[in-house]
């Protein structure tokens, strides 16, 4: 168990806005007297209070639910997206995971498709663009058949859920040396590929989403696997394999991998 009060040396990426150059700035003695029970973001809250009190600009970071489900927070901690604990978003990380006296590096997600807004905050609207290209089942609001008229085995439903649990935080992109969004996109493709509701748009969905992913400037997947290791929801690499199979299958079936040419 860590001691009751810990001191840390922070090195934080400071960048005023999208256009400015950024740099790592040293904070040797603001993160002092930190209780091990503080969450990582609460430690940052405290550091920011101290910076504001002395008239300095606080470190910009974003967060919302602070329980690992909204996907807002995202900080590269010591080179690892969301920090050292597996299956844990930065907001659920606690200072007891560190040792007294540690130097901690804080950086934003780094990817061309995620421009920095300020300091540790990045713009992930490229993810919305991918979702827009097919991350749904096309149904209108209105009367629908009874929920139990579609029977779905528990195993299939659980499998779909395991993909659907993605929180869209972007850690997979930040962890990938190629800044690929394959785990994110693969998870959504897989959810609907296994469910009966997803079948009518199965080919169109994967072709469009994969193309959009490329258009947004995300890199290619080269099977490194860092994405799953960084994922706070432990989304499995199988989702990428499935997306690839779905893609090949769709291109063959529809005559072209290009959604504009394929008969989707």
């Amino acid at each position, binding site marked *: 168990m860590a001691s009751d009060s810990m001191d840390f040396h922070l090195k934080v990426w400071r960048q*005023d806005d999208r256009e400015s150059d950024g740099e790592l700035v040293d904070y040797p003695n603001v993160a002092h007297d930190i*209780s091990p029970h*503080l*969450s990582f973001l*609460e430690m940052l*809250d405290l550091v920011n209070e101290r910076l*504001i*009190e002395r*008239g300095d600009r*606080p470190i910009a970071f*974003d*967060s*919302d*639910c*602070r*329980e*690992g*489900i*909204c*996907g*807002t927070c995202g900080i590269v901690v010591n080179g690892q997206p969301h920090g050292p604990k597996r299956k*844990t978003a930065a907001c*659920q990380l*606690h200072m*007891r995971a560190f040792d007294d006296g540690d130097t901690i590096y804080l950086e934003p997600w780094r990817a061309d498709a995620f421009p920095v*807004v*300020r300091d540790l*905050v990045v*713009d*992930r*609207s490229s*993810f*919305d663009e991918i*979702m*827009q*290209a097919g991350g*749904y*089942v096309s*149904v*209108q*609001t*209105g*009367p*629908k*058949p009874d*929920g139990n008229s*579609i*029977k*779905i*085995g528990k195993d299939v439903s*659980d499998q779909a*859920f395991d993909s*659907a*649990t993605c*929180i*869209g935080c972007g850690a997979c992109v930040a962890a990938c040396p190629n800044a690929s969004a394959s785990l994110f996109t693969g998870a959504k493709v897989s*959810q*609907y590929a296994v*469910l009966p*509701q997803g079948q009518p748009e199965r080919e169109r969905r994967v072709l469009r989403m994969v193309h959009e992913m490329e258009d947004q400037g995300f890199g290619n997947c080269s099977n490194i696997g860092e994405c799953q290791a960084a994922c706070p929801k432990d989304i499995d690499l199988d989702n990428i394999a499935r997306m690839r199979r779905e893609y090949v299958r769709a291109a063959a079936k529809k005559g072209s991998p290009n959604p504009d040419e394929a008969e989707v």
Partner: protein
Amino acid sequence: MTLDPNVPEGPLHEKWDRRKENYSLVAPNNKPNKDVIVVGTGLAGASSAASLGEMGYNVKTFCISDSPRRAHSIAAQGGINATKNYPNDGDSIWRLFYDTIKGGDYRSRESNTYRLAQNSSNIIDQAVAQGVPFAREYGGELANRSFGGAQVSRTFYARGQTGQQLLLGAYGSMMRQVDAGTVSMFPHREMLDLVVKDGRARGIITRNLYNGEVERHTADAVVLCTGGYGRIYYLSTNAFNSNGTAAWRCHKRGAFMANPCYVQIHPTCIPQSGEYQSKLTLMSESLRNDGRVWVPDDKDDCDKPPSQIPESDRDYYLERKYPAFGNLVPRDVASRNAKLMVDEGYGVGPNQNAVYLDFQTAIEQKGRDYIEDKYGNLFEMYEKITGEDPYEVPMRIFPAVHYVMGGLWVDYDLMSNVPGLFVAGEANFSDHGANRLGASALMQGLSDGYFIIPHSLSNYLAENRHDLDDISGDESAFDEAEDEVRTNIQKLVDASDRNREKPSDQQSTVMDIYKRLGRLTWDNVGIEREEESLRSAVDQMRELRHEFWNSVVLPTDTDKFNKNLEVAGRVADFLELGELMAKDALHRDESAGCHFRVEHQTDEGEALRNDEDYSYVAAWEYQDDGDGQPEGWNLHQEDLEFEFVELKTRSYK
């Protein structure tokens, strides 16, 4: 003034059908010329925007977060109610309606609550069609579990992430409309004012949270889906950015705020572990299906590890006091009892501020796998936060602020008293009376957004087409609203500049004041309220407001991402809302549901209503002091008429 809720005539079960039959429609070729603003992209907002977009309207959506998918609805854990009666345990529309009315302690509008129960089944069908991966039985059918305040099993769920899955379904439908060109998205925008022109809501003013730009947006109608104001307590289960600002600015433009003192305190949250804490984490109510609540019989045992306290020395107080509902009593009852136990000295844990929620019996009877399948992610979350393994040691839980039943007043069509301003989801006051039953907020948000707003709003546009002239955003109403927004931001900057000149012990950060506001609200307008402390709370709110403006220091760059500036604006609004909450709680001289006035309780310590004098909705009209701050409020009443249910004293024994 007495408010008219505009409820259709006829028997309860025919009201909504009759209303829909009488609604006017907008012709398909006219819809693309009608602009609708939807503020908020939680369940209520995303479902409204998707449905209105599908109908062909030109929809603009706004949210604070960087993506609409991050709305606070994403955090809902336990489930969503519907009257499917799949388990064949006797559920029906009437029963869900009745449970909700009774759960709300007879302070909700019968017609709205009935319609909610009517729509509940369609919501499940809609979500299933969207591919929402609800929990299933081995045979492939949808699974159910139980929630508090009900004796049937009617709650649908997706592990402990029901809100996430429902929201991604609604968000997906909305993104499909973005792709189709009917919906445009404006993320990282905060609505800072409502524009009212010729008495109608015609637009909003927003601030782009990335670059500080103040923008004008015009519309023929505005739908406000901005969630609840529970973050006024600082510590709550709500997300960090949840706020009351959008609703409050509408209130200051004339919309009435209804029952602001009705706040739900959720019984099962992880207790506070220290001063620095920024939020409290909910442990879903569904856990009470299998978890048993207890404290030691003997105060001297409170320090002992729970495993050393034998069965015979434990007080399962909910099972003892409420044999019929046991651990599944409604939230207000469970919360008050937990507080009672802790106040009487039976609190457990390092700070003696909790009661146990124990799964040992369930693990023995049903097996660890069963528990893991049902609650795995909640157990994991608990362990991450506390460092304790709930499979081995009982959870420690305590009540925390969770949901607000109060909100902007709306009529049966979900329109506020400002024509053209519709309010849906947690932001309105409509369906839950003085206490909401578990798993019914998701239901309400989606019922409002998928099945009510699209029809009632269309009717408004059709009926008022001659009064909704073309506007450009250059009208004086827009100039004034934008000016006011800019002035409000500048006031914060100026205050900070002034206060920086003062000695440091006369300065406070936004968070300092925010935490004190939270404490003040919790102590006085919390689980229990009483006349004297409420009176003093009204004064203390005013003093704290004064102190805020005269001591606050914050980073003042207005043209960049600046979280402190955002939060400062929200705290300034909360400081006004807090006064109204205390006033509302003071004026309601009865106990009802979550509003527990210590002066009004039965011999057994249950809430004692006064139907004679308080069977109404309190809707407050804002009065400005000429300087942008509240001078006071006028009370308007909507009388609650119970035509179909008989008012009774709630009993869960």
